[in-house]
């Protein structure tokens, strides 16, 4: 079941006009911000499908940038997000794509600064609910509604067990987990949805494990 909570249906509280094209877009942007862990210096947004056709009318552009500025769906500042981004010196570019996406409301966010960059694909499935379907080329499925840990690791035996052991030690329950890789034996990505926000120290401990390259988190 895609929708689990009554508040996916009666909610979210948000700035109009569209739950999928405004609130959902803001949520996709905010997950990107969350994963990047800081304000980017530049942002390229690619809109596909219905997003590409109607983004101006629905305010999808201001909403997604609002999310990248870490605004929630009901934050009135969303309306002025393009101006705020400019004041912050963020370079923003929108690209309208012709390609037919799997889901009609698809956005790709490519953002970065002098220290690094990140690419994320999100879909807005209705009523403000979203899924992140791709991160830096890895396929995944992430709702953004639960705290999550994303672990980039070497695609070798034992890596998952090591991570699971650390989480078990701190009595952290895993609600959903999946592993994705681009090529056998190279880099892979673990996506772990958990029930509570994870402390910084635990993330550091995970990062120091053998075979683990990088650990990022989504907080609730």
């Amino acid at each position, binding site marked *: 079941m895609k929708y689990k909570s009554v508040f996916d249906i*009666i909610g*979210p509280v948000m700035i*109009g006009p569209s*739950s*999928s094209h405004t609130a959902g877009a803001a949520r996709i942007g905010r997950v990107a911000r969350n994963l990047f862990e800081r304000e980017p210096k530049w942002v390229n947004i690619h809109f596909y499908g219905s997003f590409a056709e109607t983004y101006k*009318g629905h305010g999808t552009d201001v909403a997604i940038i609002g999310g990248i500025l870490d605004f929630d769906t009901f934050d009135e500042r969303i309306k002025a997000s393009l101006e705020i981004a400019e004041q912050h010196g963020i370079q923003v570019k929108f690209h309208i794509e012709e390609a037919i996406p799997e889901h009609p409301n698809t956005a790709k966010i490519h953002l970065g600064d002098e220290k690094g960059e990140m690419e994320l694909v999100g879909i807005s499935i*209705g*009523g403000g609910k979203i899924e992140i379907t791709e991160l830096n080329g890895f396929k995944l499925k992430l709702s953004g509604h639960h705290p999550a840990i994303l672990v980039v690791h070497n695609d070798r035996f034992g890596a998952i067990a090591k991570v699971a052991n650390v989480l078990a030690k701190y009595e952290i329950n895993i609600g959903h987990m999946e592993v994705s890789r681009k090529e056998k034996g190279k880099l892979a990505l673990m996506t772990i949805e958990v029930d509570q926000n994870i402390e910084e120290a635990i993330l550091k401990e995970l990062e120091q494990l053998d075979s683990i390259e990088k650990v990022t988190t989504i907080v609730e």
Partner: protein
Amino acid sequence: MFRNVAELVEMATTRNLPISEIMIEQEMNVTGRTRAEILAQMETNLQVMEQAVERGLNGVVSHSGLTGGDAVLLQEYIKKGQFLSGEIILDAVSKAVATNEVNAAMGMICATPTAGSAGVVPGTLFAVKNKLNPTREQMIAFLFNSGAFGFVVANNASISGAAGGCQAEVGSAAGMAAAAIVEMAGGTPEQSAHAMAITLKNMLGLVCDPVAGLVEVPCVKRNAMGAANAMIAADMALAGIKSRIPCDEVIDSMYRIGQAMPTALKETARGGLAATPTGRRLEAEIFGSEAAANK
């Protein structure tokens, strides 16, 4: 966990509980949150809905100028007492319009189930409130009942205009509202299901064709008619009228109709009213002729 309307009605009927209560229990089980926390969050949503209606009834105008002020016109018309349909229906319509006018003006609303269809559930709730004099708890129960039906639609069909057309948004919202009105008026869970089915049947095939891609024309007036449809269907179900096609099968046919609907009629602003000469002219006026020519 209930997966469809039949299971939902069965659970409520055998345990002699209202549908809203089944939804609250499920939310507690799924999220692990307390009853008090869940009710408090719904109270917050209810307050947002109240504020949006109030703001709309005071008159708002959208940035494009396409919508605004119709909720006020209707309230003034009701006050004159010369209306032909019915006071509660027109009040529901006016409050649904008020909410969507606020939404179109980028004001704060609560999506029910979406922003484009956010007027129907609160519009009907605040209109029947004047007749049924519910407690605050009963008003919150109204939202849990409608949430339960929306939950089934979202999981078995769609609540997205881009995926299923307007029938998935205003159609779902109207069905949810009809079911909740029935519960508040003292009807049975089964009657709620019939009200939802009767409403949704009359919304099947409705396309999503927003002029200039804005959630304004025809969205605001579709919420108006969604509210009216919900009120009539609720009365029909309370009168004992049943839907010959079970609610779950109506929801399934809505899904299949949405799949068969061409993309031009699913929130792309390429067909329907968006593609009329006037729709194109309005689009050109708002975004400049270049944007319209590219379509």
